[in-house]
């Protein structure tokens, strides 16, 4: 066994190249950006400009073919890029969630769509927000906020839902829209890549506990031309599944848990009557429990990435990791309060705030990171389903199944009144 990644000399040279380039090009305001919540327009403009620079190098999609805007590099090179950006606190600029949409487009988009979207996405010319859906979690179609109807050749979108993405305003919104609420759940859901400049789109200002990356978007009779439909009209679920079961995002974890290391450092350096708080036996146990949980999450992620890299089929692993991560976040949130007392709640603006108020942000983030769709611990559902606890006969490993994939992981698509795909599998 070997729990560390070894780089070739060539890759180590590449790392130096990336580091040197970043030292030269990473703009100061982006470098200094602590919390996305503090993003102002000027900084956001600088971020986008820098993303475009990254895109020009092909480093936003390093393993993609050059023809689609990628850099045609190996996964190890991609890892180097991720690491160097992350070390500088700007790993988020890689827009990794948006890359899932890009991959799905690559696999399921029309030639015209690939031509239209892939290069601009790869080159950082398009900021994409996507519908807030958790990987591996069963989605209730009735819970979808956006409805679609047809008007001539165009589609009309109405409704409201929550989207995840960076910045103040996106270039595109990736969304699922329900065509027929009366139909069976799996029916007639379409996927769109909606240009965010269309009339009738409104980003509402409902405030949330941590609002920096989640946005409420209202669609008021938004007219969307057919070219923005991805795949076929009824392939919404299929496209989504293709995204959610995409394993290219399952990569080796990089940074340590920054919140936890902030807390440990605070406990090392803050004293009561000269004794570091971290030496108080009860708090010490709490801190080490947090350390253990964080490390187990890290090991699970290493395991997952290693399995993917070695072509081993994943069954329950991703959902297990996500579930544990959420539980660990809530535990850490409690540990922060118990160790720091009221200091835990101080924001960056407060001169007394420890660790620049990051741990206060964690207090809120640990709650928003819990399952965003109703039905708590939806990951647990996914694990139970893949373990087939309710089905005595089957034990074969397979991709994360939902009602919309069959046991082989292939999407199940059924259209009202017609039969398509493997009907027996339903």
């Amino acid at each position, binding site marked *: 066994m070997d729990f560390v990644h070894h780089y070739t000399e060539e890759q180590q040279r590449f790392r130096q190249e990336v580091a040197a380039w970043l030292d030269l090009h990473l703009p100061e305001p982006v470098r200094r950006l602590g919390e996305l919540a503090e993003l102002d327009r000027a900084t956001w403009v600088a971020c986008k400009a820098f993303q475009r620079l990254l895109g020009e190098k092909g480093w936003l999609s390093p393993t993609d073919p050059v023809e689609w805007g990628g850099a045609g590099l190996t996964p190890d090179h991609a890892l180097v890029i991720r690491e160097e950006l992350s070390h500088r606190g700007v790993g988020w600029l890689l827009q990794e969630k948006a890359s899932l949409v890009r991959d799905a487009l690559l696999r399921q988009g029309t030639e015209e769509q690939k031509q239209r979207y892939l290069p601009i996405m790869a080159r950082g010319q398009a900021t994409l927000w996507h519908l807030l859906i958790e990987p591996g979690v069963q989605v209730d179609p009735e819970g979808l906020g956006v409805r679609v109807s047809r008007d001539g050749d165009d589609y009309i979108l109405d409704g409201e839902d929550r989207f995840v993405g960076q910045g103040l305003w996106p270039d595109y919104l990736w969304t699922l829209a329900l065509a027929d609420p009366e139909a069976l759940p799996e029916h007639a859901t379409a996927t769109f890549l909606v240009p965010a400049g269309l009339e009738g789109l409104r980003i509402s200002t409902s405030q949330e506990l941590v609002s920096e990356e989640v946005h409420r978007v209202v669609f008021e009779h938004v007219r969307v031309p057919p070219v923005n439909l991805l795949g076929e009209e009824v392939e919404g679920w299929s496209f989504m599944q293709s995204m959610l079961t995409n394993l290219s995002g399952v990569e080796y974890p990089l940074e340590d848990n920054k919140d936890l290391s902030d807390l440990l450092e605070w406990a090392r350096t803050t004293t009561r009557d000269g004794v570091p708080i971290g030496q108080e036996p009860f708090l010490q146990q709490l801190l080490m429990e947090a350390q253990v949980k964080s490390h187990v999450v890290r090991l699970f992620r290493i395991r997952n990435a290693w399995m993917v890299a070695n072509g081993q089929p994943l069954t329950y692993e991703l959902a297990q990791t996500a579930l544990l991560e959420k539980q660990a976040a809530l535990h850490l949130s409690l540990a922060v309060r118990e160790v720091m007392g*009221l200091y835990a709640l101080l924001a960056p603006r407060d001169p007394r705030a420890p660790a620049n108020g990051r741990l206060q942000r964690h207090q809120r983030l640990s709650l928003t990171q*819990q399952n965003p*769709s*109703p039905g708590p611990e939806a990951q647990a559902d996914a694990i139970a389903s893949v373990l087939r606890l309710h089905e005595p006969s089957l034990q074969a490993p397979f991709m994360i199944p939902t009602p919309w994939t069959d046991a082989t992981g292939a999407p199940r698509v059924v259209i009202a009144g017609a039969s398509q795909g493997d009907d027996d599998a339903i």
Partner: protein
Amino acid sequence: MDLALTETQVMLQNSAKEFLSAELPKHRVREIDDSETGFDRELWRKMCDLGWASIVIPEQYGGLGSGFTDMAVIFEQLGYNAYGGPLLDSAVLSAQLIAEAGSEAQKKAFLPAIAEGQQIFTVALTEPEYGWGADRVKMKATRQGDHWVLNGTKLFIPWAHIADRIIVIARTSEGRTPEDGITAFVVDRTSPGVSTRLHYGWIGDKLNEVNFSNVRVPAENVLGAVGHAWAPVEHARDRATAVLSVYMAGGAQKAYEMCRDYSTTRIAFGVPIGTFQRVQDFVIVALTEADASKWTAYEALWRLDSGQKDTAVGISMAKAVASDGFSKACDASHHVHAGIGVDLDFGLTNYTVRARTFQQYLGDSIFHKARMAKLMNL
């Protein structure tokens, strides 16, 4: 054995319910929280007109001289509505400290004003070396003629920015134990050298950093005997802690009710989400934490009001339960509510932020369990 409220208590409860449901809908709570001072003087006036500040103040000083259970009945409703303002700090914590340690003249001077809500008091105990024990009181006061001079910093002091007077707990001498040598001073907030600054953060009460720079306090403003304030401070803190625990039980109850109701109305996959055992389990956690907080707190109050032995251990247990329980009930409620629960308009976060704050205020679960252990001769 009698777990029922008295007729008077039921009356107080009903009047509080009525008043608060009219005056404090959830959007009002957020408005007040988001306002510059977090304090609504008109609402405060109305609460005081209902007599809420006077309940546990002795009759001879303008109060009702009622028991702490009566006061708690009001606070349970305040907690249920996620707002208390400076009522706890002024009318319970400060008033009890004055009633216990003050001279006759001080009681006459301060208590009626507190009882009527004309003056707002708060107690400044915690410091940068944060903690709730006597060993955490480091700030010095030194005698100069017929005055004392205070220098130092207090952190996390509730409502100091709108208080008329601050009871400052400071060290006037080093004793053999941390409890020795602690003195309480009544300080005008407007005294030269006193400055307050609201803390920024995710805080469910208005807390301040208070700085004292050569603040001169007349000797007659010392509460009780110089160097011997800790015992009355601890008694007053116990009383306030018992009342706060009920407030937190009220908040936990609301967090429970919100997730119970949501679980029966939110439909997913065609059924109310309360159909799912995982959702049920979170609702049950919230319910049980709320019940545990309520009954440990009321038992502690009964011990207090009826002069039982083991009052202090009961109070520390109540706060330990409420500190853990209110936060857990909110966590569970968030699990059930998922995305909607973190929307600030929805109302649940009004409770969560208070659960996080009051988990700490007047001592967290760790502090109170350690105190229980000591009181139980462990």
